[in-house]
């Protein structure tokens, strides 16, 4: 069995650009919600002095993550800010003193067994850096360690433009393998598969070089077929296992971890410096000089674009992440988040949405969906507002990878319809549950 996918333009213009560390901006705005789960609770107040790595917000509840200051300076205020999904979240604004003094409390954590390892990962503020922003430590939590069979290291980087994971593999390859050693030691996992798309020969060579010296690590070269880095797609193509609908990779004994997340964990255990900066790709048709940069979390997109060499024209659309699954930002004041791996700034021409025409029933959406859904029937069922049909069609399985909407010659907004259809189905299912209870 082979999963469907699409060929998208790669546009990996920045694969050869080693990241440049940007000077800290005057202020950073750090939102309390940069992960899936409850927003973090601020523990600083206006006027507090902070250093790089100072805890400014603690995890609120189980699925949440702590947040640390990314610059040294003074807390200017705690304000509300509109984020990319349109909601308002509290946000700590820090005025930088430009010195980037590290916090004296930043010391390597004491890690000696499974529990202290998970605790350290939790305190590092790490979230899935590939894009989803799921708190990392949650993946490692289990009562029975025998469920961990293998780790799939997501280095596919299938989105156009983005090369920050490629840079991790080239510039921080040792850290990746130190991360593998940590998972071996503390989680007792013996089998590791690094999944990389075949359009990154330098990264493949580097990973292979180190894998040859390490037991239990296989570098799996995958065709450059979007969405190769989609969790379910990657697990299937690396292990042949299918994650059940509504389940997690661990249900089939797999942990999927992004290659940059893994490198970060290794580095955190050595230095104790929590997640305060991000390597990201700055590219897109509006960007003057595409490059990779290392920016403090909370730096505004406007500042990053400026520091990275400026824009050719005023961007018409700006994305967190790549063009296939990236989120549009409402304004250039939006900050770099923990899970931001790229800023793509598009000019008016690239941003222009294509004209939508009537569906011609060509079946391209059906024949390109990696999860074998039927977007055309889903759209019809949604129009009829039939939650029963949407349930049969498994719309809740959709990962919104965008293959259907990309390939549609009529340019129907199929991802948008699927998102709305999922909402209809969720409401129906929760009503049904309530009715029963």
């Amino acid at each position, binding site marked *: 069995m082979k999963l469907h996918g699409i060929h998208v333009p790669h546009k990996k213009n920045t694969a050869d650009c080693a990241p440049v560390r940007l000077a800290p901006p005057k202020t950073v705005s750090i939102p309390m919600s940069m992960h899936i789960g409850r927003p973090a609770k601020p523990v600083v107040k206006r006027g507090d002095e902070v250093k790089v790595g100072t805890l400014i917000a603690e995890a609120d509840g189980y699925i949440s993550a702590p947040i640390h200051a990314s610059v040294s300076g003074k807390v200017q205020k705690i304000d509300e800010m509109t984020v990319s999904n349109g909601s308002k979240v509290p946000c700590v604004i820090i005025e930088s003193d430009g010195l980037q003094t590290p916090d004296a409390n930043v010391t390597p954590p004491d890690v000696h067994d499974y529990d202290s390892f998970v605790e350290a990962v939790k305190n590092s503020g790490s979230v899935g850096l590939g894009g989803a922003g799921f708190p990392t430590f949650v993946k490692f939590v289990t009562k029975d360690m025998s469920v961990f069979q293998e780790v799939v290291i997501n280095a596919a980087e299938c989105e156009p433009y983005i090369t920050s994971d490629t840079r991790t593999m080239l510039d921080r390859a040792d850290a990746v393998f130190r991360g593998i050693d940590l998972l071996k030691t503390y989680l007792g996992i013996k089998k590791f598969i690094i999944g990389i798309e075949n359009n990154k020969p330098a990264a493949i060579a580097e990973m292979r070089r180190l894998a040859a010296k390490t037991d239990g690590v296989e570098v799996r070269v995958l065709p450059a077929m979007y969405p190769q880095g989609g969790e379910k797609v990657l697990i299937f193509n690396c292990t042949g296992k299918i994650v059940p609908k509504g389940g997690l990779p661990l249900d089939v004994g797999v942990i999927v971890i992004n290659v940059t997340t893994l490198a970060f964990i290794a580095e955190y255990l050595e230095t104790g410096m929590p997640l305060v900066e991000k390597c990201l790709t700055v590219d897109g048709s509006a960007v003057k000089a595409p490059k990779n940069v290392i920016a403090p979390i909370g730096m505004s997109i406007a500042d990053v674009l400026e520091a990275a060499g400026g824009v050719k024209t005023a961007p*018409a659309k700006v994305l967190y992440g790549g063009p296939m699954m990236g989120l549009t930002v409402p304004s250039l004041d939006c900050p770099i988040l923990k899970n931001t791996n790229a800023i793509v700034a598009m000019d008016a021409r690239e941003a222009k949405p294509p004209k939508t025409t009537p569906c011609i029933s060509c079946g391209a959406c059906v024949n390109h969906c990696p999860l074998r859904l039927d977007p055309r029937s889903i759209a019809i069922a949604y129009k009829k507002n039939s939650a029963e049909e949407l349930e049969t069609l498994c719309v809740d399985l959709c990962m919104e990878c965008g293959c259907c909407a990309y390939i549609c010659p009529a340019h129907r907004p199929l991802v948008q319809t699927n998102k709305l259809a999922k909402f209809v189905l969720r409401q129906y299912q929760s009503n049904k549950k309530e009715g029963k209870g």
Partner: protein
Amino acid sequence: MNKLISTVSPHFHTTRTTQKIMLDVIIALCPTAIASVVIFGWRAMLVIAVCVGVCVLSEFLFEKLCKRENTVSDLSSVVTGMLLAFNLPVTIPLWQAAIGSVAAIIVVKQLFGGIGQNFANPAITARIIMLVAFSGEMTHWIAPAGFLTPVDAATSATPLAAMTNGTELPSYLDLFLGNYGGCIGETCSLTLLLGGVYLLIRRVISWHTPVAFIGTVALLSLICGKDVLAQLLSGGLLIAAIFMATDYATTPNTKWGKIIFGVGCGLITILIRFWGNYPEGVSYSILIMNILTPYISKLTRSKPLTGGVKP
């Protein structure tokens, strides 16, 4: 500061459009249009022009009248017009061709919701309507009187009729080049195959339906002890298998659906050709399979990758 555009992902899209797909089909039909003029003379071009013109005009006026979004620019009505013309004899009175075109666009396509919504192939169904309404004119065949054989028009039997009646067949070469009596665009196998290859290369169609359709006809002809090559090269088989059985809206979308559709078409074609009263069966076979398409689609719908139930 300028306002940023906010849309749901993806932010990249294929450059393919409905219009480009239809343009590809038109390009694929062009060699056959040229061949039809070479074989049957300038009147072939006139019939094509009338059908295309009336199809486009019907679509435009109907949508205007119903205040629907205008879809003339997607070129699908041009394709319908060309395909309908290709399925008519060159001697067809132009007013009859025009009525057929109106029926194709308004009755078969627009009344069911326009592009992508019709359940039956407009060109095929219009042809069948015309066969019933104008049976004399629709089955009046003349020998080629174009540039290849500049002789006076003489009534001639189609090869399929010839096979049914047991009269002499044209040579394989004539069958391949289309130098025999028949519909405007169905005789020249060479240009039809050329168009098919073009559509395959451009990924407008997949191989499943044409191969299943033609393969079934070949296999059953062989089993029934008929002249396989003559069965394949004559009548409307190639134009139907390549251009009409691959229509998006009226045929299944999945790989296995397409194969079932093709096999079904081949089977019905053979039943009509060998045992029916009527020498040609491809039009009816496609119409019947069009009607079965929703069931085939349901039967062959791809199963979502749910990986079993979560424990």
